[in-house]
């Protein structure tokens, strides 16, 4: 009998593929069903936001950076605002910090809900997507309440917030926080002990702690390998050190561990949100008192000449930022979300660079899927929680 000839098969996955979370393209080399190698191709969603930001004034960059990671828009703008404020040397009032914390945590919940829904759907639990989107709708409604926009509120600004909280904000947030823990139990009841889900996720896409650090996977992925690194703990910002919360970790480093870490993170986020909403008064200060950056109140603009001039200057020329550079990290839903800004002392940024967690997660993807089954690729992409807008910028 002639010797059987075997050769590997090359399969193209994406860029138009329902489980590539946008436009990620993977070229897989298969030996039967086992993956020999994977080659990601990115850049399909590259829109040159960093270059565009160099043409804008400092404040005008906020809506741009929100469009990078479109599932965690306000994490982007918070990181950017904090970086610019670092160069300006601005300190935010307590209430602004508390509102920012609340918004950042609600954003984390919204982002994790999309992750949960799509990740579970790709593994086969299709109904999870609808349950998750239903809850996320309430968070979108809160965005609409504070800014009139559902996806990209641009509510966090350099120097504080856009305006004070609207009427009914506390009721909307409290209603969500009362309802959501029960829904979390429902989600977990469907997945956490689900035999099919666990068989699809346990022991799949394993990464070690040392590799996670070397690949730059700081965030939920590293925390699923035993790291306790969380920017909110290690380098607190916005007064996170005054909040009582736990940093959930797991040690297995597989898809299921990342699932458990994110689920536990959502429960911690609810705790932080409760503490924050109790601290925030319905009416109060919503920006710092630095007149370089924050326009004067409208009644003064109409009655005082200096205020009118200041208003005019801020809206026509913007403000200048002292020359220098700053890197400010925050704990975004996908991991360390940093902004590196360089100023030459003018009213426009010299360089804005986002540190995209999805970019690093996709870079490490081949090492996570190699040697696994082709069906597991989908599980690993889902558990890395990649957003192509964040990756390609």
């Amino acid at each position, binding site marked *: 009998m002639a010797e059987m000839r075997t050769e590997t098969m090359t399969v193209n996955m994406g860029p138009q593929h329902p489980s590539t979370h946008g436009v990620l393209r993977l070229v897989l080399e298969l030996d039967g069903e086992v993956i020999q190698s994977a080659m990601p191709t990115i*850049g399909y969603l*590259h829109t040159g936001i960093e270059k565009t930001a160099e043409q804008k004034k400092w404040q005008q960059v906020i809506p741009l950076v929100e469009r990078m990671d479109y599932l965690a828009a306000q994490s982007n703008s918070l990181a950017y605002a904090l970086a610019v404020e670092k160069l300006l040397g601005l300190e935010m009032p307590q209430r602004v910090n508390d509102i920012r914390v609340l918004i950042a945590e609600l954003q984390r919940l919204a982002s994790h809900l999309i992750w949960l829904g799509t990740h579970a759907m790709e593994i086969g639990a299709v109904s999870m997507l609808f349950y998750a989107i239903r809850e996320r709708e309430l968070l979108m409604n809160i965005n609409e309440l504070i800014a009139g926009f559902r996806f990209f509120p641009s509510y966090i600004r350099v120097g504080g917030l856009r305006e004070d909280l609207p009427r009914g904000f506390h009721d909307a947030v409290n209603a969500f926080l009362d309802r959501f823990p029960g829904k979390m139990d429902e989600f977990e009841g469907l997945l956490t002990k689900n035999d099919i889900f666990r068989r699809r996720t346990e022991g799949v896409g394993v990464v070690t702690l040392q590799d996670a650090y070397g*690949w730059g996977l700081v965030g939920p992925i590293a925390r699923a390998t035993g790291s306790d690194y969380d920017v909110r703990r290690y380098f607190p910002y916005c007064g996170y050190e005054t909040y009582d919360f736990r940093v959930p970790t797991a040690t297995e480093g597989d898809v299921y561990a990342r699932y458990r870490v994110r689920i536990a993170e959502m429960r911690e986020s609810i705790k932080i949100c409760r503490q924050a909403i109790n601290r925030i008064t319905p009416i109060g200060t919503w920006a710092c008192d630095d007149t370089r950056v924050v326009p004067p109140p409208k009644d003064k603009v109409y009655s005082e000449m200096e205020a009118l001039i200041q208003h005019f200057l801020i809206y026509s020329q913007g403000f200048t930022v002292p020359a220098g550079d700053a890197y400010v990290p925050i704990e975004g839903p996908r991991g360390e979300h940093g902004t590196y800004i360089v100023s030459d002392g003018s009213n426009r940024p010299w360089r804005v660079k986002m540190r995209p967690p999805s970019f690093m997660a996709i870079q490490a993807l081949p090492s996570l899927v*190699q040697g696994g089954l082709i069906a597991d690729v989908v599980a690993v992409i889902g558990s890395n929680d990649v957003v192509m807008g964040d990756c390609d910028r």
Partner: protein
Amino acid sequence: MTAADLIEILNALVPGAAYEAGASVDFPTIYVLPEHLVDTCRALRVEPALRFEAFIEATAVDYLPRVPRFEVVYHLLSVAHRRRVRLKVRVLNAAAAEAGVVPTVQSVWPGAGWPEREVWDMFGIVFQGHPDLRRLLMPENWEGHPGRKDYPVQIQKATQTYSPLEVSEEQFRANLERDRVKRAHPH
């Protein structure tokens, strides 16, 4: 720990390297000469007193018309010591950038691969020893490096409606083979 303290430790580990502390508002900034970059990075990662085990990002800034024109910036994190550091490498001008004066640090942190590719894509800074310096964000046939300050902000480009497979079968197989060799013998 200030930049001066870090430099003191590094000087003992990398003899002959001329470090220079940079101004910063957040965490220590150290200027490194390209020829000492890899040794410095290895020392930063391995030395128990430093242990910058996590690679955060690499990027570049174009300071046109200043000379030296480019700076390659690395952000590193030590989880063990709750510390960050910023390394900067000066690249004299565009010609020097294309000559590949900055070495790759992929042997220290594998995660440096794509950020370095992005820097080459956007700024045209060649990383010496980089095994896979191809376009990352821009299309493979793109001309120029859009991150540079002398690159126009708005350009007219005909829309590509159809393009055949970008790599030939032979190239593709060669790529796969090279990747496989790379994985079998990492670094």
